[in-house]
């Protein structure tokens, strides 16, 4: 960005028309409004990082477009923002994730995990009654703020006597809180359970309180406005720790959390006195026996994931095997599709051939079909027992069950899928090679083969070289084909992590989503390694294809 940009020449001509100013400021305002909306959404979601980034972008927009200075930045900014959002950000995010244990069972923050474990540990008291429940506020209070209480009813039942015992003094009120048809009535607040005088109370058909003097019973949608508070309201009752809590909109249960958390010691203790200590993103039993508590949290693990990739024997051996196949597969794919495509292109480029348009459109057909269809169809055709290929050829090759068979199957499928593209670009490139060079070669006495090798091919390669590199890079990450045809298999006995036809990207996908304990942190680390490899290979490839340019 140049600091010394002079005002554009137009300013010398005179004043810019007013509508241009208006439009410019209108657009700036519109952009800022949009960004403000995004920021607001981010604030609601609590993503402060996004807020900061959005604010930064907004400031840049204001600074760059509101002044007459910084002309180059006016052109560059949109591109830079997009580069930041769609190229840099994913890389940074992936890299950041690669240093965590983020994955199944480790998706929460520690606070969330602690809360989740406690919420999940709430158990019903097996002998306690089930209450009919209405949510109420004091009469005259506002729905949004009035203090919540539960109006509870216990249906007349044979075990009513037992209940009175359990409730102790609450039930001593005797007949006063019992309705004509035998329902017992209570008011539950955070302080505890009180009897509710039956006089003036109306019950609904399902045995819950419809109206009570001094209270305003909230209807379903009103109560739902305060659903979180209703959910958290616990009416202490009976033995220590037990509380009446909402089960549904019309029922309440008695239960208590069976796990408590000691924040200072960072220890979870169950009702039976078992202690769980925080370790590696989980609460693990202190005595080392038994499973960990279910909910875990994300934490930083440093270079652990990279250490796994490079030092874990199962991983390291598998990684090398996959890497070799990951080089061989795109290389063989590019060579085979290019050769077939080029030969066909040469053939169809012959001026003596009639009806070229028809042949050409037919040849492009495989390219036009969606790979999701063709991939699955080819997988079915390679079935050893029921597949078309063995049936037609009379062979009995175990295509998908044998490592080499599976690799061959993939190359054949990719040849079929890929040659039309090579055919297309070769046809285009061949047509752009002037005829005079070939004539010159013929005059010099070169035969057709010599012309092809020494004249046509070099000129062709100049044109299609970069495309071959691109095709290599595409096949380097050709996840879909592998996933549809072999799913990375077959697998060696005892190693279901590393498939014989896995590409690195399929391997990463399996670790991230399909393996026993999906581990996105580890998969991110693998992705970073792949990113590095693709970068190196692409650099070498382009340097090579630059060398080809020198033919000209």
């Amino acid at each position, binding site marked *: 960005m140049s600091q010394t940009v002079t005002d554009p020449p137009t300013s010398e001509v005179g004043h810019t028309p007013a509508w241009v100013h208006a439009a410019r400021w209108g657009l700036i305002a519109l952009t800022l409004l949009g960004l403000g909306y995004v920021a607001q959404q981010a604030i609601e979601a609590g993503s402060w990082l996004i807020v900061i980034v959005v604010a930064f972008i907004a400031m840049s927009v204001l600074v760059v477009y509101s002044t007459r200075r910084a002309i180059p930045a006016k052109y560059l900014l949109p591109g830079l923002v997009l580069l930041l959002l769609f190229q840099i950000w994913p890389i940074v995010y*992936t890299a950041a994730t690669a240093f965590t244990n983020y994955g199944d069972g480790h998706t929460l923050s520690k606070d969330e995990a602690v809360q989740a474990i406690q919420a999940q540990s709430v158990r019903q008291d097996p002998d306690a009654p089930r209450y009919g429940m209405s949510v109420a506020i004091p009469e005259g209070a506002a729905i949004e703020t009035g203090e919540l209480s539960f109006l509870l009813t216990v249906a007349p039942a044979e075990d009513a006597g037992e209940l009175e015992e359990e409730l102790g003094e609450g039930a001593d009120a005797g007949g006063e809180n019992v309705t004509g048809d035998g329902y017992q009535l209570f008011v539950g607040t955070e302080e505890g359970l009180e009897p509710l005088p039956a006089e003036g109370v109306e019950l609904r058909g399902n045995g819950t309180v419809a109206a009570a003097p001094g209270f305003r019973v909230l209807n379903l949608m009103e109560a739902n406005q305060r659903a979180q508070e209703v959910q958290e309201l616990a009416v202490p009752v009976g033995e220590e720790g037990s509380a009446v809590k909402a*089960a549904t909109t019309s029922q309440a249960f008695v239960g208590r959390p069976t796990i408590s958390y000691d924040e200072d010691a960072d220890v979870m203790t169950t009702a039976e006195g078992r202690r769980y200590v925080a370790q590696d993103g989980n609460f693990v039993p202190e005595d080392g026996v038994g499973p960990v508590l279910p909910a875990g949290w994300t934490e930083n693990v440093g270079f652990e994931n990279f250490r796994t990739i490079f030092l874990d024997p199962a991983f390291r051996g598998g990684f090398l095997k996959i890497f070799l196949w990951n080089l061989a597969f795109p290389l063989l794919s590019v060579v085979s599709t290019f050769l077939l495509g080029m030969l066909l292109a040469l053939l169809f480029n012959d001026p003596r051939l009639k009806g070229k348009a028809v042949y050409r459109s037919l040849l492009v057909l495989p390219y036009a079909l969606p790979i999701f269809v063709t991939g699955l169809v080819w997988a079915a055709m390679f079935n050893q027992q029921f597949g078309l290929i063995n049936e037609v050829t009379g062979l009995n090759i175990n295509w998908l069950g044998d490592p080499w068979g599976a690799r061959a199957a993939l190359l054949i499928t990719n040849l079929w899928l890929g040659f039309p593209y090579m055919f297309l670009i070769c046809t285009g490139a061949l047509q752009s090679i002037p005829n005079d060079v070939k004539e010159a070669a013929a005059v010099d006495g070169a035969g057709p083969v010599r012309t092809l090798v020494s004249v046509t091919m070099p000129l062709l390669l100049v044109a299609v070289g970069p495309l071959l590199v691109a095709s290599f890079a595409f096949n380097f990450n050709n996840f879909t084909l592998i996933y549809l045809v072999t799913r990375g298999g077959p697998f060696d006995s005892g190693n279901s992590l590393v498939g014989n036809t896995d590409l690195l990207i399929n391997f990463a*996908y399996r670790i991230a989503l399909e*393996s*026993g304990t999906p581990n996105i942190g580890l998969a991110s680390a693998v992705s970073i390694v792949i990113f590095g490899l693709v970068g190196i290979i692409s650099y070498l490839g382009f340097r090579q294809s630059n060398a080809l340019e020198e033919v000209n």
Partner: protein
Amino acid sequence: MKRTTGAVAIASAAALLLSACGGDSETPAGQTPADTQDAAEDTAGDDAAETTEDDAAAGGDAASETAMSDGTSLVIWADDLRAAALEDVAAIFEEETGVPVTLQVVANENLREQFKDSVGAGAGPDIAVGAHDWLGELVQNNVVAPVQLSSDLAGQFTPESVEAFTYEGQTYGVPYSVESLALIRNTEMAPEEPATMEELVATGQEMVEAGETELVMAQQLGQEGDAYNMYPYLAAYGGGIFPVLEEGGFDSTEVIIDSEETIQGGEKIAWLGEQEALTVNLDGSNTIPQFIEGNTPYLISGPWAIPQIVDAGIDYEITSMPDFEDGGETTPFLGVQGFYVSAESKNPQIAQTFVQEYVSRPDVQVALYEAGDRPPALVEAYDEVSQGNTDIEAWGAAAEGGTPMPNIPQMNAVWGPLGKATADIVTGSDPAERLATAQSEVEAAL
């Protein structure tokens, strides 16, 4: 030129796959069989239904088009079949409570992942309909809230179905249907019910030799194997994956894949492979078609296969999987479908009301049965629909004595290695050695 990072590639590839490949592919490693069953079921639906589902899947990927819990209406995510069945229930609920219900169709194979991801991001539905074996994973990531069923209500369901939705002593869902593997027989080709697996194989082989059929029997296995489909054999002599605890559930700290009992079951798998009753060339895409085309008289599959068989006009009978002559009792896994409440629901009490007070109603369970043809989990509803319905009675009988698939998250580490072991055993590996390898692999992954 591709310069995307691996992460973006993974994400986009995953999105593409999830939205486009649908139920046609075979069992993905590590994905639980319930998904596969449902995938099979999806392909069973008529074309129109599939199209709408695919559309829904494409739409479901865009967050803006997917209904989320917002505190003004009850949002339920279900696949197309169940969403259709829930329409009446939703209408009743709206009428009785005044709370509007939004039914969002989410393609079956995406439901688990989307439910998990969206709730993890603090959004998602109030209620999701899904299989019980997702439970451990959902609890681990705090996706679902406990459902405090009254003991009265819990007692109205079959005990296995409630147990299936119980994790570490806590209940997290309300069940509505139970399914398991059974033997489906083409009564035109094989009028007699085989008394044992041996008899089944002998009859099948005779028919193959006589040129009447091509296959002894059809059961899904695939190159990568299938632990769900092979479990009835592995558990036939008391073996299995994890030991069953007395108080219900499984003890995930001990793996019994290399136990003597499991190996005895593994030997039966090897024998079935030798007899060409099992083959790795039958996978999710071609197993049921083989039966429909009349290439085999026997199919071992679940309720999801029935719609296709009925469409093909085949006379069939459902019976429990036969046992072995030497006393080995084939024991299929039970899969239970039910309703989960999101831990991030904005309407927690209303959602709980729906699952506890409406899903448990007999008429609702019957309506859900009519949409899915699986035996209801509510005893009263089961008694009602099994009256004079031999299919449902047979499915009920097949499920009797079965154990629910473990719902612990550790199962994800078992499906892949154990499945591959079963495929290898069928193709000739020694059961004892191969199961020992699987044991060490599973132990290493846990």
